């Protein structure tokens, strides 16, 4: 989903962070507004494949991103299939997946400091209305930085439970994960304050 930067020299790597984010926002918005038809879905997926090919990220990376999103796809698709016509359900889910994959293409090809800088510049005007662009940039950076940490917690919990012969259940997994994440957030808050972030 949100991926770590991968070095490269493709056109997407060279495109400045500001225009890239803007382009992504426009495409995401357009995809969300189009009617849920198979035509829309086909176009969206063709766009995704084209972006990964042009960016030099390749089919392998695309597959990996899809695989990391598999549970999200199930969670979105199943309830929709129950209440909506199948074509609509598939098209709806497909467009969200396309947006996620495009977002991953952005984070794979853009260094985080560049994303922060672009966000701060792009949202500079919100300061007049009490906005805090620096904070938005920081949250973005922390989200990307923290994902491997939370993933690490999940592994630790799974292993600890397996070691004690416990079967995986949602409650026995989510609660410790939440506790560890909140603890981490607390420590991180201290570290941020100590490093001069208000």
């Amino acid at each position, binding site marked *: 989903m949100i991926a*770590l*930067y991968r*070095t490269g020299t493709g056109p997407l790597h060279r495109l400045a962070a500001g225009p890239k984010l803007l382009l992504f926002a426009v495409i995401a918005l357009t995809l969300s507004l189009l009617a849920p038809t198979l035509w829309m879905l086909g176009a969206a997926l063709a766009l995704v494949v084209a972006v990964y090919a042009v960016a030099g990220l390749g089919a392998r990376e695309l597959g990996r991103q899809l695989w990391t999103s598999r549970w999200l796809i199930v969670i979105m698709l199943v309830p929709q299939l129950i209440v909506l016509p199948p074509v609509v359900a598939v098209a709806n889910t497909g467009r969200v997946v396309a947006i996620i994959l495009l977002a991953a293409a952005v984070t794979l090809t853009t*260094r*985080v*400091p560049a994303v922060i800088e672009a966000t701060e510049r792009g949202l500079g005007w919100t300061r007049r209305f009490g906005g805090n662009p620096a904070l938005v940039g*920081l949250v973005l*950076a*922390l989200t*990307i*930085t923290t994902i*491997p*940490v939370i993933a*690490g917690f999940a592994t630790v919990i799974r292993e600890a439970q397996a070691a004690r012969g416990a079967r995986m259940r949602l409650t026995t997994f989510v609660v410790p994960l939440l506790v560890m994440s909140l603890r*981490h957030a607390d*420590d*991180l808050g*201290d*570290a*941020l*304050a*100590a*490093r*001069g*972030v*208000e």
Partner: protein
Amino acid sequence: MTGISAREVGVEFDGRVALRGVSVELTERRIAVIGSNGSGKSTFARLLNGLVAPTTGSLTVHGLDPAHQARELRRRVGFIFSNPDAQIIMPTVAEDVAYSLRGRGLARDEVRDRVTAILERFGLAAHADAPAHALSSGQKQLLALSAVLITEPALLVADEPTALLDARNTRRIAAALLDELPQQLVLVTHDLRLAARCDVALWFDDGRLIAQGSPAELLARYEREHA
């Protein structure tokens, strides 16, 4: 105006006393803080860069009053925690260190040069573009140290920086803190061998500063009482 000066400092958390009546004048370079769990060591350390405010009494740290000059103080006081993971803000090693220099109006090249220099100093240059979370715990603490020292703080506070490290990494961090720093250091630790290498030791017990003096003497007494 160097040094730390506390007069009758007390700290309470929701009516619970964490520190009481702490008075101390510290100008030594390396200051060890020892005491059992819950004795108030971290609270004392956190006072020094304004993470915690005194409930009573007055405090001056390198000429600044933490209660009113917290922002200024944080620029002058670096802090290292024990949890190596929770101090990383940016995805890669070099980006994380560079983050400390944001908003200082430095040119890009200047930032890059200073980051490279400090990463070389702590043996992290080869990992500059690696994801910070992929480092070992010891390397993460060296990264935290780099990210703090690049701002050239006047005082460094370290709260059990070696708590989660193995012997070799403890030695590396200890050498960096105790032998290689020019600035004042407050080192909270349960590792009495590290405390022994400081110039003065403070002993906290139940929120009180119960003894202060040469580490050799104080640690011997501490060990006797906890035997």
